[in-house]
């Protein structure tokens, strides 16, 4: 979740933000209406899609729900389908997860299964730098692979390690102190304050001042630890345990539904309790083994097998892709429904939360990364207008050319747009300046009107 396993409870204060007490209910009286919470969720799913069934033919409001997008029927008005976006210079390929949120053009692929180097900061961390102080966790970074397989990178370009352990995320969320560290910390603090008091008498005036700083800091931390210990004892409003399968193993075919559903539920809880404003879920890697890949068919390999042909020429390969697409879209739609059902002030949670759903490839056979299948949902409170299909860069509808996938669009028109522009727009709608982020040259004002 955070780069070093810092105790996130440190951010949990005696003010008593506890689980299932949404932010606005606590502060509703005090907060001015304009001061609505702004949040962003970035979900990344690897590999390409069945491109014959993803992008609608028509743009604008009355686009038709393609077979891939059917699961979104109930939240159709809350989401925008995006055509024609890509990175400008960033290369495609197996490390798409490491470029997706950085738009980093300098990167070289180091090695299979390691992060791209040197990388640049990802948009979620850029936002978190500005908003992080307001919440317990600056950002929540999760993924089924976890660790360095993450879309989040800090200012130094180092990966922000992703947490994969549902139980651990949940424990941190409710402040359960799973390793019982608080008590030990309390006794360590006891000891050092004794020591400092002894030392103080032996020092000169200037030094005493320094030591007083030390003692005050120790006392401040002691107070917090005590508050945390007390918080641990207080009965908390229970999370909806039915929705949480905390021991789900994403490597087991029959548990991967539970794993992703639980992860989305934890993300929902983190947002609802205002534990963080920024969440990144880098689901899994594209190539090779790993979690979330047991939907009957080798996801990555079958992508290659589509050979950019029409669907009828490779029915099996495209069938596998469609199965994965539908599976993910069902889960995402449910997450969006959950957010839209939660009330926050006069609106719902989704209205204050921009949800980016990104895929790293479009046509998977040769790992093309033009016309990426992207979705943006919610965030109307941030200014996004939803319920449409928008095509950028003069992107034409997907129509077979000589029995194969259409060629890469090279004519971007007058005002080209890229993924970095989209990410930057999200950041700036959250009130975080992001000019010059990644490859960005402009904001996507088309999304706002």
């Amino acid at each position, binding site marked *: 979740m955070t780069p*070093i*396993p810092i105790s996130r409870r440190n951010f949990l204060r005696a003010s008593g933000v506890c689980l299932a007490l949404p932010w606005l209910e606590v502060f509703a009286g005090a907060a001015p209406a304009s001061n609505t919470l702004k949040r962003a969720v970035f979900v990344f799913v690897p590999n390409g899609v069945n491109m014959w069934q993803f992008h609608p033919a028509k743009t604008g409001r009355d686009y038709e729900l393609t077979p891939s997008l059917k699961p979104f029927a109930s939240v159709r008005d809350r989401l925008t389908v995006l055509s024609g976006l890509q990175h400008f210079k960033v290369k495609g390929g197996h490390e798409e997860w490491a470029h997706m949120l950085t738009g980093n053009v300098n990167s070289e692929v180091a090695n299979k299964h390691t992060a791209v180097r*040197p990388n640049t900061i990802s948009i979620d961390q850029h936002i978190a730098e500005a908003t992080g102080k307001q919440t317990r966790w600056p950002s929540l970074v999760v993924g089924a692979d976890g660790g360095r397989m993450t879309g989040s990178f800090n200012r130094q370009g180092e990966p922000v390690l992703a947490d994969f352990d549902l139980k651990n995320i949940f424990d941190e969320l409710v402040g359960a102190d799973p390793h019982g*560290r608080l008590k030990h910390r309390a006794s360590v603090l006891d000891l*050092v304050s004794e020591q400092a008091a002894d030392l103080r008498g032996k020092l000169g005036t200037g030094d005493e001042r*320094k030591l007083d700083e*030390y003692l005050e800091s120790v006392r401040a931390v002691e107070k917090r630890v005590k508050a945390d210990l007390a918080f641990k004892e207080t009965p908390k409003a229970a999370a909806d345990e039915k929705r949480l399968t905390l021991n789900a193993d994403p490597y087991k075919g029959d548990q991967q539904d539970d794993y992703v559903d639980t992860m989305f539920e934890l993300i929902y809880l983190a947002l609802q309790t205002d534990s963080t404003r920024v969440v990144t879920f880098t689901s899994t890697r594209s190539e090779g083994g790993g979690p979330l890949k047991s939907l009957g068919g080798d996801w990555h390999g079958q992508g290659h097998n589509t050979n950019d042909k029409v669907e009828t020429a490779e029915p099996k390969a495209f069938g596998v892709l469609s199965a994965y697409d539908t599976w993910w879209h069902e889960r995402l739609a449910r997450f969006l429904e959950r957010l839209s059902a939660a009330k926050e002030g006069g609106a719902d949670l989704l209205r204050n939360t921009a949800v980016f759903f990104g895929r790293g490839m479009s046509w998977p056979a040769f790992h093309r990364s033009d016309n990426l299948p992207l979705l943006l949902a919610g965030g109307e409170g941030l200014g996004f207008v939803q319920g449409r299909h928008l095509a950028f860069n003069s992107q034409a509808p997907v129509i077979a050319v000589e029995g194969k996938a259409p060629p890469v669009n090279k004519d971007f028109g007058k005002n080209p747009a890229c993924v970095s522009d989209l990410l930057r727009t999200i950041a700036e709608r959250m009130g975080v300046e992001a000019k010059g982020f990644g490859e960005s040259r402009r904001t996507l004002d088309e999304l706002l009107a």
Partner: protein
Amino acid sequence: MTRQKLLFVALVAMAPMSVRAADPPGEKPAPVPGAAFVQRYCLSCHSAEKKRGDLDLSGFRDEATVVAGRKVWSNAIRAVRDGEMPPKGAPQPTADAREAFAEAVRGAFLRADAGKPRDPGRVTIRRLNRTEYNNTVRDLCHIEFEPADNFPADEPSHGFDNQGDALSLSPLLMERYLDAAEVVVARALAGKPAKPAERVGFAQFMVSGSKVPYRLYVFTSEPVAATFRIAADGEYLVRVEGKPVKKDDPAPEVSVIVDGKELKRVTFAFPEKGAYTRYEIPVALKQGNRRVSLRLLNPPAELEEKKAAYPPQVDANRDNRPGLELHAIDLVGPTDDEPESRRRILACDPKAQPREQAREILTRFADRAFRRPATAEEVDRYLKLYDRSLEAGQNFEAAIGTSLQAILVSPNFLFRVELDDRPQEKGSHPISEYQLASRLSYFLWSSMPDEALLPLAAKGELSKNLDAQVTRMLADDRSDALVENFAPQWLDIRDLARVTRGPQLDVRLRESMARETLLFCDEVLRKDRPITDFLDGRYTFLNERLARHYGLAQFGRDKRTAAPVPAHAFVRVELPADGPRAGVLTHASVLTMTSNPDRTSPVKRGTWILENVLASPTPPPPADVPPLEQAAAGTVKEPVTVRGRLELHRSKPGCAACHAKIDPLGFALERFDVLGQYRDKDGKAPVDDAAELSNGQKFQGTDGLRKVLLGKKDQFTKCLTEKMLTYALGRGLGDHDGPTVDAIVAAVAKDNYRFQRLIFEVVRSSPFTMRRGTKETPK
């Protein structure tokens, strides 16, 4: 020559005598040094009535008062020597007269300092800054790990981030310390080796990963090799895999060589099953880069004869030539699964009772963490915490871990506490040997004293062996910290990572710029070059990107081997003697940092030189100064260049006093643009890099500037001395440090301005080795 000269020579010659005569009480006090000079050239303005520049020299009646007002008079001799004073239009003394005056005043200082114990000043207890914390944890716990990277930034003061007064501690930082202590202890006691061997260099045929790509065919005795980096000493396995090309070929005999020494000879028979025959050969290795190579001992004679025609070949061997088909060269390990950190921290008498074992472990760790022997009372406290942890249900190791955490957040670890070991002594006296060890190691290494320093301190033999220790420590890799931490802060280029100058200044260029300066400073230190190299060294370090940036075409091939230099590698480049670049002043890093985003700033560059080269910082501009653009607007004919606008600005009387000093220095660098690239035009107008100092001395361009600065060698030496002393002591300098600085400057000058001399002198100086008596009242 003139009468004037004679007069001053006489004054200088007489001065010491009069002082010696003045020593017995009741005698007439020695006169103000250079009194006639002051009378003739200074007092008409700097009098009690006029008090020009807020300076009244009339109040100084004798030598003693001059010595007491050391700062004022140091500044006066500098202004007189620089020709800044007397101002233009006033009667001017000759150059010799100026020197004689300076000598007279300095002579007074030296006499006053002679034989007197110097006040070593006082250092506030210093908290470890982020760099020091990281390095100390590395050396204390034997782990490679940088926990301080998410600590809040350290506030710099006097130009450096290691100053006791400025290093504060907040609750946030305290929490980070607690978190870091948990993580550090967990890592240090972890059971699995932290870092396996890692391949860093490849035989030219090996592309990536730990295996030979596909296959490598070796036909001759030409060796193939791979280099590995090893983080810790230990037992490793050399793993080689191969077979003869065809079943009926003679089995290749191979010599396995590690770092030039044969480890073993092996024979690759054709495998009964599987793709190759594997050998794993155990070997004990020290940390560092290790080279593993293979030499074929029985190459087919007909191929060996024409060795050059049959180089090792990757992947395909279509002719099925006989030879060795190599599948892998690998170094695996360490095989002993107890990592060094754990072994060293937990080492104890296996036969002792657990509590005694705990005492042994905790005592050793606390001794090193506190950089002095821990008292029995201190250790008892940690033992009690250990007892309590056991009672709370922790096992032996976890309980030890909790106490180790407590040590890592103790004020005795986080601060460099220098308690007076002779509080009864009234006057200044040497700091304790352990404190000296810490001062040394944090100065040169930004880390704790090592296994050589602490025993010396324990025996009380460190101060006797200071020079030898400094020599040893400078030769140690850890002294990179001195270059990495001192140089960028002295040269003010630490913020390079944060400046924006449009798309041209991307991450790589930025890093290359910073690296050039670091490598240059490193060279001056390692080769013990004169510090004047910083001003006029005609060499630098460039990679391909920076060479292009500088428009230097000769970059690209290694001089000796004529092999192409890889684009990212830095190489030493000799700069043309008639070129514009030499020394750090023309480094892109410095030139970029001293520019505005959209234009060069002769003011910033001039100020930079005054502060970082000449030790004569100017006061900040008054609050109501309009920006340059505005100051120039509304004039009849608006000048086009930055320089033109500045000249106009400078013509205003309120600005002239300082800017007459600042701007000329900056003008000379006008041939370098905002990113330090050479240019002939500023906008559309040709660059004018002619300049004139306030004393009327004319010079042009970087060459001229270099000559001016080299003419002020001692001034530069003083500047660098003050900076280094500030860094070494962790406190700003005061008047009482004047004698120390003067003495170091003299010693460095005498030793041909060699850089290491400066370091040795700083270490020997009284502020570095002494302390004020505890009872002494601070001045």
